[in-house]
């Protein structure tokens, strides 16, 4: 397929396109490393990889403004990195070190960063949705122009919290962008076994929310859609729903035997992978070649190596600190 790659549109900013590629590559390589570190026991707990879905987060994050908030799930390494949490801090978190972005208390599923408005890392499916709605409510009441980006999988759409949150956001015309990462499976449950209506945009529209289907494997498409959504939300037009059609190349978590889908199905999708296809297009547009690739890979490898070293040499929080952060340290 790559051989048939379509060059990028003429009006594209080549440097930006390459940067999108680099960002996707960066989170891909980072997670490959995580998988390795998981196998060697350095990372524990649950680890959910975003591999295959990078075009979604990468496209979306381009429109996230400094004062916006991102509310994500347990499959959020990519988003965290894209949002600007340092790789050191993310890796250290997975190592459970004090230098981690959640001080080692959260782990893979609970990356947080107040500075960049990254408010979780929520591992209750659907649990982040009301939070995002509330953040948007605060933004609207304070008229501060912030948007809440609510990221979730298609599986979450069956939860009551989806329904309640969509209604509230629409009723109150709040600046939330609902980003559904439809990878067609919730653990082992295929979309058509979890939803009576699999046209997810129709579900969203039933709340009178503007909804778009987006090719989640195409980073230019995801970027453009997110921009439309952000513009609309910031203009005061209320919530926006984006269904990104994508695919998860790896197991749900590291405990998954993947009995619910064939190797072949996975392979088919891999051929349409965001790095592969976008890389080929960049090449077709002469924006990328082997040498540039190698440079990018080398830079990323270095960053990852440093992150691992940083995490390795991080400090385990002393057990005496266990009781901290149950309540705020400054009390009235």
């Amino acid at each position, binding site marked *: 397929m790559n051989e048939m790659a379509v060059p990028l549109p003429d009006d594209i900013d080549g440097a930006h396109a390459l940067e999108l590629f680099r960002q996707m590559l960066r989170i891909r390589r980072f997670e490959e490393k995580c998988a390795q570190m998981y196998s060697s026991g350095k990372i524990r707990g649950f680890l959910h990889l975003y591999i295959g879905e990078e075009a979604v987060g990468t496209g979306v994050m381009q429109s996230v403004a400094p004062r916006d*908030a991102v*509310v994500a799930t347990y499959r959020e390494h990519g988003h965290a990195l894209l949002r600007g949490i340092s790789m050191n801090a993310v890796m250290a978190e997975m190592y459970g070190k004090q230098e*981690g*972005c*959640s*001080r*080692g*208390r*959260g782990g893979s599923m*609970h990356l*947080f*960063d*107040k500075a960049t408005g990254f*408010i*979780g*890392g*929520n591992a*209750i499916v659907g*649990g982040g*949705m*009301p*939070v*995002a*709605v*509330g*953040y*948007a*409510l*605060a*933004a609207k*009441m*304070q008229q501060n122009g*912030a948007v*809440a980006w609510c990221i979730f999988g298609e599986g979450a759409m069956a939860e*009551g*919290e989806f*329904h*309640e*949150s969509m*209604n*509230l956001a629409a*009723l109150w015309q709040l600046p939330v962008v609902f980003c559904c990462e439809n990878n067609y499976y919730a653990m082992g449950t295929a979309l058509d076994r979890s939803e009576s209506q699999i046209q997810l945009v129709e579900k969203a529209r039933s709340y009178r929310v503007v909804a778009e289907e987006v090719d989640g494997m195409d980073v230019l498409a995801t970027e453009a859609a997110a921009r439309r959504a952000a513009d609309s939300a910031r203009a005061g037009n209320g919530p926006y729903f984006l269904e990104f059609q994508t695919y998860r190349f790896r197991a749900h978590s590291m405990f998954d035997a993947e009995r619910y889908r064939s190797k072949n199905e996975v392979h088919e999708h891999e051929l349409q992978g965001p790095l592969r296809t976008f890389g080929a297009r960049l090449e077709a547009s002469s924006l990328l070649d082997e040498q540039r690739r190698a440079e990018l890979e080398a830079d990323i490898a270095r960053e990852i190596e440093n992150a691992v070293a940083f995490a390795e040499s991080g400090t385990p929080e002393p057990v005496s600190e266990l009781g*901290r*952060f*149950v*309540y*705020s*340290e*400054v*009390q*009235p």
Partner: protein
Amino acid sequence: MSTTIPAGMREMTYREAAREGLHEALTRDERVFLMGEDVGRYGGSYAVSLGFLEEFGPERIRDTPLSESAFVGAGIGAAIGGMRPIVEVMTVNFSLLAADQIINTAATYLHMSGGQINVPLVIRMATGGGLQLAAQHSHSLENLYAHVPGLKVLTPATVEDVRGMLATALADPDPVLIFEHILLYNRKGLLAADAGAVDIHRARIRRAGTQVSLITYGGSLWKCLEAAELLEQQGIDAEVLDLRTLRPLDDEAIMATVTRTRRVVIVDEGWRSGGISAEITARIHEQAFYELDVPVQRVCAAEVPIPYAKQLEDAALPQVADIVAAAGRLVKGND
């Protein structure tokens, strides 16, 4: 309560005091808003916010759809986003629909984020029985939340507390749950003209005594005070300790009263097994084992879903006579 009102005091109902507290909070801090089912046009299911919609407008007195999980969760998000939301859940029974947001999210974010994301959210709920509302509207489930680290659980019993605890809760950087017993709203009490925020970490002795301690909170406080009067007629001098806050518990105050009287009755409208009364008993057992003359007694709700019929509901809930009997047994040791 005397009919002449002391100088510098005002008499008002618990409802009015709750209302004043809310009013003051809304007036003083623009970030504060009230959100919940029927807090606006209806005036609040217990009429606490009657007229607020007109005064503060629909942005700040925000009627919500029936969706407890979303509007409680939206409170969390709004709190993180810089507001100071007060979320009203009509009764603690309905709060079970929002239990995920309260326990899995509000209570965990600060810790999971390594101290970064605090959630300054206040949730008010009605609780308790006594109006024959039966098994889906009458339970005292506050102890479910009192079990959860990361939450604070307040149970104002007096006009001063229902007014003042709200201010303190709003100043708190972390999630605070306030439980208002449904039978208190019409109860009158005296409030100092300059009443304001109150401490929420200390239990308070509402009646000093020497022979037996009645440890309680919320709606049951008044039953205990009534019981204490009856006990006095029997020559028994009871102390009444109002816990005020169920999490964190004021161990010091509890042990102090235990040490003074050496006999304890805990009165709690929650079910006995696994209720807050169990925790208090356990702490007394652990911390004041050698101070007790006799084992602690618990007067709690019977272990049944609260029934509708009056005589059954009465029998299911702790009554003054039960308290008097329990305290009497302890002091007189008749068994």
